[in-house]
């Protein structure tokens, strides 16, 4: 006998959905309204109608465009290096015999660290007067401050993010590797396949989906975070590390142009929704959350 009213499942979800809706839909609508307004903060918050002004401004804004370019470079390099080194880490750790679990535990330490601490630690290590890494680089013949040069600053902040999140890719890949059926690998060996041939034709096809999930999870976070850059270079030198979230934050809270910042935010949001879509689609292959 079915009772009238919402199902048990719906009633279970309702509290969470109500809270989530008020934390996401209301801000979302506010963001849209802000993007068509001049937002005044002095003497109480006021929205003044700006029609399409913020949006027009975006079209002509070369600074924002260059921030998008920086973001995409940052995005591609971070993800590329993290995927490549994460896979290598996982392959290495997977081949270790004794002490494998301990090694894996130690190797994932960075990802529990607050990004702000990672950034500060990065500054500490690369500080040209007292940093451990700066000292090592000096021995190798590199002088100067890594965070001061345009290219080196971007590479350094990318390096910090890579350091923190490569372990996640490694951990997920490792789980994928552990799930590859051993007989398959053994059969390949019997057939005379070398290590790399086995990887190419047996292992990688098996863990493809796992790798894709790792990539998407990292991609979603790579657009979200900006703590490390905020605390290390804050976008400099000469905008070299001014990825779009940093630009947005500066526009809103330094120049107090919240309306215009909202326009930038909406574009970021659109970008992240594409990512979320891809993520859900990949899951859909095996039937979303069953």
């Amino acid at each position, binding site marked *: 006998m079915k009772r009238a009213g919402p199902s048990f499942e719906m009633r279970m979800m309702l509290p969470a959905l109500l809270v989530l809706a008020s934390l996401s839909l209301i801000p979302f609508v506010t963001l849209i309204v802000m993007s068509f307004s001049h937002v005044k903060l002095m003497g109480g918050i006021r929205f003044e109608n700006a029609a399409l002004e913020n949006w027009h401004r975006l079209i002509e804004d070369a600074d924002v465009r260059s921030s998008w370019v920086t973001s995409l470079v940052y995005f591609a390099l971070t993800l590329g290096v993290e995927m490549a080194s994460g896979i290598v880490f996982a392959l290495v750790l997977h081949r270790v015999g004794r002490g494998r679990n301990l090694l894996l535990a130690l190797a994932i330490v960075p990802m529990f660290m607050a990004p702000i601490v990672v950034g500060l630690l990065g500054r500490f290590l690369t500080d040209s007067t007292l940093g451990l890494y700066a000292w090592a680089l000096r021995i190798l013949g590199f002088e100067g401050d890594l965070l001061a040069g345009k290219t080196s600053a971007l590479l350094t902040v990318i390096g910090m993010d890579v350091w923190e999140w490569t372990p996640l890719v490694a951990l997920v890949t490792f789980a994928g590797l552990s799930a590859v059926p051993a007989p398959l690998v053994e059969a390949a060996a019997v057939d005379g396949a070398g290590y790399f041939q086995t990887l190419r034709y047996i292992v990688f096809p098996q863990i493809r989906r796992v790798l894709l999930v790792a990539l998407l999870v990292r991609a979603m976070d790579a657009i979200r975070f900006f703590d490390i850059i905020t605390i290390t270079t804050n976008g400099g030198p000469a905008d070299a590390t001014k990825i779009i979230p940093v630009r947005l934050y500066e526009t809103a809270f330094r120049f107090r142009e919240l309306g215009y910042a909202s326009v930038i935010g909406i574009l*970021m949001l659109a970008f992240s929704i594409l990512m979320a879509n891809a993520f859900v689609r990949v899951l859909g292959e095996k039937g979303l959350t069953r």
Partner: protein
Amino acid sequence: MRRSNSAALLVGLLALLVLVWTLAPVAWMVVSSFKPTPAIKTASPTWLFEPTLEHYRDLIGAGNDVRPFARNSLLAAGLSTALAVGLGALGGYGLAHWHHKSKKHLAFWIISTRMAPIAAVILPLFILFRQLGLIDSIAGLTLAYLSFNLPFAIWLMSAFFADVPPSLEEAARVDGCSRWQAFWYVVLPTTTPGLVTTGVLCLVFSWNDYAFASSFSGPGSQTLPMAAGRLITQGGVDWGQLTALGTIIVLPMIFAGLAVRRWLVTGLTMGAVTGE
């Protein structure tokens, strides 16, 4: 024989390299926090020194008392985690068992709120919190953290609930349990690892947050990562205190994270990659 030996050697060397790359910075931070200041401020690294607790003491005493920051961090992260786990468990169960053609859309909406860029979320929340008087309050931070913890918790818990065999619940129903009783007394206890993992990860996410805290908090609600940010000033950086504070911020979360290591892959991929 010789070939496999050299392969093992190569693997060993590479593994060592991985460990040095990941652990050297953390180890250097922890070691530096026990160094006297002159031993930190040298152009070539000091390896031998007499350990001191002065930097830790400085963080409790006088000018740079971090205890209020620690309290704010604990409160905001703890409250947000508790709420996320509670609501997330109910919502996750509902989502796992809800069979409806809009399920896909609902699930997508939930995940998309988790993936929203923080910088873009801060803007409207800043305005709304200003209106509601939530700026510089623990409640505001708790809500802000909930905006990313709750969707995460719903997804993750739903992945854990989907793995509970339906027969368990059916048996309880046959024995006369209501659906709520079956959930509360039978299904929920079997997902304890899920609850703990969800809780730990939510705690880590909110404890580590800097963006929300720096936008919404004021003198009365600053958290530990903000205390760390404040140690960098125009006049230079007190690296002794900073490494000590970094150690304090980081160690509890490392231990918490490692404690749920078995379920981490499920957790960090929101259940997308389970044991299979």
